[in-house]
C-alpha cells in the first residue's frame, strides 16, 4: 500500500528541509510519540549530514517553530504547529486530488504530493479542498486538517464531489469518501462493499434512498446517504 513517511528531500533546499522536519514532528505527534532528532534526520535523508540538519533545526528553534527537549526530542511551538498543519493539509489534499481526480498509482501520488505540499498557495489549497467537497481524510485514512474554507463550507466553486443525496435517481457515481458520525456505521457500510472507489447507481430517493452496487441493492436512511460523498460518472 502507500507509504506514510515524510517526503524524501532530494533538493538541498533549506525551506524544504524545514517543511520535512515539521512534517516529521506532526507525524510523531499524530501517532502519540515524540519526534526524536536522530530518527527525524534519518527520515529526512540527512543522516549523513547531521551538521547541516542540526543547523537547520537550530534555525527553526530561533525562528520560533520548535522547541528542543534534552537536546534530543523536537516539539512544536504554536507557531510551528500552525505552519505544520497547513503543510499537512496541503500534502493530504494533494494526495486526495491525485488519487480521486487523476486516479494515479500509489508511487506517483507520493512523489507528486510531496512536491505539491511545498508550492500550493493558500487560495489554491482552499479551492482544491472545496472542489473535493472538504474531504476529512486522505487516501490512507489519515486526518486532513481543516482550513477556513471547511468552516465556511464555501460553495463558490461547483464541487466535483457531492453528498449522495444531491444526485438524481438514475445517476451513476463513484464513492470518494464516507464521513460518518460514528465508526460503526462506516464499518457496517464497508462490509456491504460500500467504500471509496465503489461505483453505485442511485435508484430512488424516496421513501428511502435505494442504491445499487453490482447486484447488491441497499436501502439507506437519508442521514446516512448525506455522509457518503460521490463523484458523478457519465
Amino acid at each position, binding site marked *: 500500500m502507500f507509504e506514510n513517511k515524510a517526503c524524501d528531500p532530494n533538493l538541498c533546499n533549506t525551506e524544504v528541509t524545514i517543511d520535512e522536519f515539521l512534517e516529521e514532528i506532526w507525524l510523531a505527534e499524530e501517532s502519540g510519540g515524540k519526534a526524536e532528532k536522530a530518527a527525524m534526520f534519518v527520515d529526512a535523508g540527512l543522516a549523513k549530514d547531521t551538521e547541516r540538519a542540526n543547523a537547520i533545526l537550530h534555525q527553526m528553534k530561533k525562528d520560533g517553530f520548535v522547541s528542543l527537549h534534552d537536546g534530543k526530542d523536537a516539539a512544536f511551538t504554536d507557531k510551528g504547529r500552525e505552519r505544520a498543519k497547513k503543510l499537512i493539509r496541503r500534502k493530504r489534499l494533494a494526495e486526495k486530488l491525485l488519487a480521486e481526480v487523476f486516479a494515479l498509482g500509489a508511487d506517483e501520488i507520493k512523489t507528486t504530493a510531496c512536491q505539491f505540499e511545498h508550492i500550493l498557495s493558500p487560495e489554491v489549497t482552499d479551492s482544491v479542498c472545496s472542489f473535493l467537497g472538504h474531504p476529512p481524510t486522505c487516501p490512507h485514512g489519515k486526518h486532513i486538517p481543516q482550513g477556513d474554507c471547511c468552516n465556511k463550507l464555501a460553495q463558490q466553486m461547483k464541487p466535483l464531489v457531492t453528498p449522495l443525496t444531491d444526485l438524481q435517481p438514475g445517476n451513476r457515481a463513484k464513492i470518494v469518501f464516507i464521513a460518518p458520525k460514528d465508526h460503526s456505521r462506516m464499518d457496517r457500510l464497508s*462490509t456491504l462493499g460500500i467504500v471509496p472507489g465503489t461505483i453505485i447507481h442511485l435508484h430512488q430517493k424516496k421513501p428511502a434512498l435505494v442504491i445499487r452496487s453490482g447486484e447488491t441493492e441497499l436501502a439507506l436512511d437519508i442521514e446516512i446517504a448525506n455522509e457518503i460523498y460521490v463523484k458523478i460518472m457519465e
Partner: protein
Amino acid sequence: MSAKGLRKLLLVGNPNVGKSVIFGYLTGKYATVSNYPGTTVEVSQGNALIGTHNYTVMDTPGVNSLLPMSEDEVVTRNIILNEEFDSIVQVADTKNLRRSLLITLQLSEMGVPFVMALNMADEAENLGISTDLASLSEKLGVDTFSTTATRRKGITKLMEAIPAPRRSVLTIRYTEDIEKAILAMEPLLPESRISRRSLALMLLGGDTSLKSWLHSRLDRADVDKLDAIVKGTQAQYSDSLGYQINKERLTVVDRVAVQTQTRLKKPERGVRRWLGDITMHPVWGLPVLIVVLGLMYEFVGVLGAGTMVNFMETQVFAKWINPYAIGFFQAVMPVNFLRELFVGPYGIVTMALTYAIAIVLPITATFFIAFGMLEDSGYLPRLAIMVNRIFKTIGLNGKAVLPMVLGLGCCTMATLTTRILETKKERIIVTFLLALAIPCSAQLGVIMGMLSSISPMATLIWVGVLVVVLFLAGYLASIIVPGDPSDFILELPPIRMPKLKNIFMKTIGRIEWYLKEAVPLFVLGTLILFTADKTMLLKLVEKAGSPIVVNLLGLPPKTTEAFLIGFLRRDYGAAGLFTMQKAGLLTPVQVLVSVVTITLFVPCIAQFFVTIKERGMKTAVIMLCIVFPFAVLTGAVLNFGLNAFGITLQ
C-alpha cells in the same frame, strides 16, 4: 475429528445466499429459508452422510464479515473459533462475488480449510454473469463449485470435495502501520484454531466481543499490551481501523473478482426487476401495498376465517366430532361431572378443541401461508422501505416491519423475532407494541368475524382506535425508553417467485409450533373455567369484575368469563365473545367495546413468558402493568364516547 468418527462441517456465508437450502439438502432436515436479512438467527444442526463419512452439519447465521458487528456475526465467528470442525463450505452468491470474497479472504487469513460453493448460479446466468471457476480456484487455492441449490444443481460435485478441503492462498498486505501492529500483537496472542494474524486483525478492527475469550487465555498484562497496540494504531487514523482494513481487503478482492468474472451481456430489465422497483416506488408502492393487504385479507380473512372456519365449526365439529364425542362419553362415562369435563359447556372437546382447531387453526394456517409467500418473495424488505418514515416517529425504523407483520400471525413468534432489531431500545418498543396493540391472526380472524356482522363503521372505529393507540403508545415509548434508534441500512434481495415446497415446509413447521404452544393453553384455560364454574367461583369472579366490566365498559357480567380466559390467550377470550355475540347477548356497541378491549388486552401466557425470556422479568412485568389498565381505559373511553354521541352502530 471427534472420537466417534463423526466429522463436523460448517456452512458459512453472507445472508440470503442459500445456506439453509444447501443445509436442508445435505441433512434432509429443513431450516427456515427466507429472504429477509437475518432470519437465521438460531443455528441449525443436522447429520449428513458425505462420501463415506458421517458429518454433523452446522448452518451458521449469515455474515457480511467475520469481524463481527452484529450478534449473528459474533455467533458465526465464535463457531469458527471454538468448534472442532473438519471442513467449511463457504456458500457465496455468484452474482455478488465481491462481497463473498470479502469473507473468503478472512477465512484464508484464519488459515482454516474450506471449499466454496458459488450458489445461485441460475440468477447470475440470467444476468449474463459468467465466472471462470478454474481461474478462481487457482487464485484462491481452494476448490470452487457452481451450484443452484434450489434446483439441486452442482451439489453432488460439492459433496465430493467436502472431505478434502484446502487452505486458501489468497493473501493481503495491509498498510505499514497495520502490518507493524499485527507483527507486534502476534507473539502476545494465544494459540487457537485460527491464525494469530486473523485474531490481531479482529482486535485492530475494533472487535470487543473477543475480550472475554482473551481474558480466559491470557494474563491481564498481555491483554493490556494488546489493547495499547490497538489504541496506538487507531490513534493514527481518523477513520476507524475496521473500515480501513475492509477498504484494503476490498481492493484485493475487487482484483480477484474482476479477473474471474465477466458480464457477457447487459441484463435486460425483466419482470422481476420491474416488480421489485414498483413495490418500493414512492407513489406506486402504496397501491401495491393495498393490493397485497387486500389479497391477504381475501385469503386469510375471507377464505381462512370465513369459509374454512365456517366449515370446520358448523360442519366438522358441530355435525361430526362433537355429537360423536358426546355420544361416546355418554356411553362410557357414567359420572356426569367427568362427562361435562369433556363435552359440557366448558368441555375440553366441545370448548377447547373446538376453539383451537375449528376457529383458530384455519386462520393461523392461512396466515402463515400468506406470510411465507411474503417472506420468500422478497417483498418484506421493500415494505420496510415504505414504512421507514412512519416508523421513525415511534423510535423504530423500517426493519421493525418484520416482527410487526409476523405479530399479525403470532405475537409470541414475533417477540422472538425482535432479535433481528439492532438496539435494545427498538426491541423493547416492538415487544411492547406486540403486547399491546398488535392482534394475532387467531384473534384477528375471530374479531373480523364479529365486526363484519355489524356496521362497517364499527370496523373503521376499531382500526382507527388501534392505529391511534399503536402510534400514541409507540411515540410515548420512544421518548421514555432510553437509547438510540439504529441505522437503517437494509439489503434488498431480488424479487423471487416463492417455491411452493419451501412455503409448505415452513408453514407445517410453524403450525406444529403453534399447536404445541396453543392447544395446551386452550385446555388449561378450559379446565380453569370448568373448575371455576363447578365451584361457583366463576360467579364470584364475575361479580368481582363487574364494576369494571359492567360499569366501566358497559358489558354484560358474563363477558368477564371471556376476559378471564383472555388472560391465558387473547384469541381464546375473543372466541368467547364471538359465541356470546352469536347467542345475541351483545349489542353492536358492546361488541365493538369488548373487541377493542380484548385486542389491547394482556398478551397471552406464552407471549408473556417469551417476553420475560427475551426482555427480562422486570421489563415484562412493567409492560403488563401498563397494558392491562391501558386496554380497560381505552375500552371505557370508547364506551362512554359512543354512548355520549348516541352512536348505536345499528
